[in-house]
């Protein structure tokens, strides 16, 4: 008698038929646990953390936002290598509004979010027809180019940047504002991607010709996805401007492009939650490594490799699979 390991989905019923799903506490916990627990952790943690680790949490949330925004684009078939564009655009817009016009943060942040997102969308719209790595390349180049333009024309403070922006009222405001937005965006976008609208976006990644063949204008849908993603990135940038009271060329740095992708890959590039999880892992890791001094980035790079090689499918996917499936040995009759 030969045996074979079989995988079985746990609680199919609980997940597919929502009305009956909530019939028992156990099932409810099974469903809500993985969602509520991290959310609760995010909301409670700042109260227990020191000022410095609160800052780290801010970084986590910012990179998580960038990673989510990257992932949302990736799910639409646009692999961006230039999240820095979104981040930087938001940062500069809010910086300019605050520095030159003295507009307070609670206005500049929303304004920069929308305006920054719109600008990014307008900049990238002409290249939406590019595919795959060619699109990636353009997104990689545009932020680099903006840096050089600022450098050459010396606008908005040139290489020095602008500093002395109005800070947000307090450390806790900062943390709660950004984690709130992060959780909202994460769960909101997850919901969105589950709708039929989200399905169309996923369809574009899979096979854009077939989407066209379904009578849908892929250009318009891609533009929308781009707008959503760049708005999220722009918010992160606008927010950071006020946290560090500074905006300058480095907001277009490669770090803001690469780290979100690394987060998404480590966490699981197929899902928004995976991208967020990646940021939650990588940013504190990078901070914890500060302790070892100069070798920090070296270790960071190695950790990245180890994560990816050890769990190629991504951490979130792996956990999700283990959570929802069980395995058992079955006999096969011949």
């Amino acid at each position, binding site marked *: 008698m030969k045996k074979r390991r079989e995988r079985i989905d746990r609680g199919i019923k609980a997940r597919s038929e929502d009305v009956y799903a909530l019939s028992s506490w156990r099932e409810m916990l099974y469903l809500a646990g993985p969602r509520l627990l991290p959310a609760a952790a995010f909301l409670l943690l700042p109260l227990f953390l020191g000022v410095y680790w609160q800052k780290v949490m801010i970084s986590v949330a910012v990179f998580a936002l960038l990673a989510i925004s990257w992932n949302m684009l990736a799910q639409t078939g646009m692999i961006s290598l230039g999240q820095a564009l979104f981040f930087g655009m938001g940062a500069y817009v809010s910086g300019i509004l605050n520095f030159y016009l003295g507009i307070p943060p609670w206005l500049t942040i929303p304004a920069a979010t929308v305006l920054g997102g719109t600008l990014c969308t307008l900049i990238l719209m002409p*290249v939406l027809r590019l595919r795959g790595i060619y699109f990636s390349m353009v997104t990689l*180049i545009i932020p680099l180019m903006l840096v050089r333009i600022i450098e050459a024309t010396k606008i908005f403070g040139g290489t020095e940047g602008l500093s002395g922006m109005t800070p947000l009222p307090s450390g806790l405001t900062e943390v709660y504002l950004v984690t709130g937005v992060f959780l909202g965006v994460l769960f909101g976008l997850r919901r969105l991607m589950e709708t039929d609208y989200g399905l169309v976006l996923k369809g574009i990644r899979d096979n854009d010709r077939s989407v066209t063949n379904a009578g849908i204008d892929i250009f318009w849908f891609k533009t929308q996805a781009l707008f959503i993603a760049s708005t999220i990135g722009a918010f992160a940038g606008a927010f950071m401007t006020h946290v560090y009271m500074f905006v300058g060329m480095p907001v277009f740095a490669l770090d803001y492009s690469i780290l979100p992708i690394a987060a998404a890959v480590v966490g699981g590039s197929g899902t928004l939650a995976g991208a967020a999880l990646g940021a939650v892992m990588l940013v504190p890791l990078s901070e914890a490594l500060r302790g070892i001094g100069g070798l920090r980035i070296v270790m960071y790079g190695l950790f990245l490799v180890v994560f990816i090689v050890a769990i190629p499918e991504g951490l979130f996917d792996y956990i999700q699979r283990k959570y929802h499936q069980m395995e058992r040995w079955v006999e096969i009759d011949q």
Partner: protein
Amino acid sequence: MFAGTLIFALINSFILILLAIGFNLTFGISGVANFAYGALYIMSAYMSWTLLNLLHLPFWASAAISIVFTMIAGAVMYRFVLLRVRGQALSEVIATFGIGLSILELFRYMGLVGFEYTLPVFWNESFMIAGVYVDIQRIAVVVIGLMLVVGLWLFTHFTSTGLAFRGIAQDERTALTFGIDSDRMATLSVSFGAGLAAIAATIIIPLGSIAPNEGYDVLIKALAICIIGGLGSTGGVIVAGFIIGFAERFTDTYIGSHWTMIVSLAAILLVLAIKPSGLFGHQKELEERI
């Protein structure tokens, strides 16, 4: 002035071509993402430097050893890292990028950043050509660059290994059905690419110095050239190298040095706007063909 700019533009183009050629072999032609490319370039240079200055080996010997070593490093990297995430393009990119990051930052940590880390020129002599002095090293860049490009073209079009490289990039599963061992081929391609990076480093580094930052630059330049040439095309690398090389030098002379990057980046955007799959590429049309 014009003639001088022309000469330096030519040299600059060949520097770019040399930088890109190895990356083009691994990524463009065989479709294996090796984003540690810049790091391997810098690593081979440090290796030569160490052999030369600490073990006092002759220049040629240390260059040869480091080229071979870099090739081995590439192969090892494939076996132990890339192989495990093969087929997932992004994981490949990030994993190799992580390796590159580690290597480059390790060098920085070791303090290998000064201008003292450089390689000797082959022959310290300059010639007057068209009113400017040009050194032999720069002429060597052009000659060797040209030779390597032609060699690469012949290799990928006429040798079975080269053809197999092209096969695994386009459809790995189909390649398998013809007895092409895709893992072996990919290992070779990473290794050859690394070797070309090392050769480029041996020739180009003497013009400047070995700086970890350069590693990131090399990667981006190589990627850009490979893409605007059109993935998979060797000829594309030459033309792309020329476009950027000339754009840079002519902007530098006639517009201003801090516009060089802007103009060359704009040139890339322009090329992609007109030819969405690069100069010699057909990806877009092929993908959209029904």
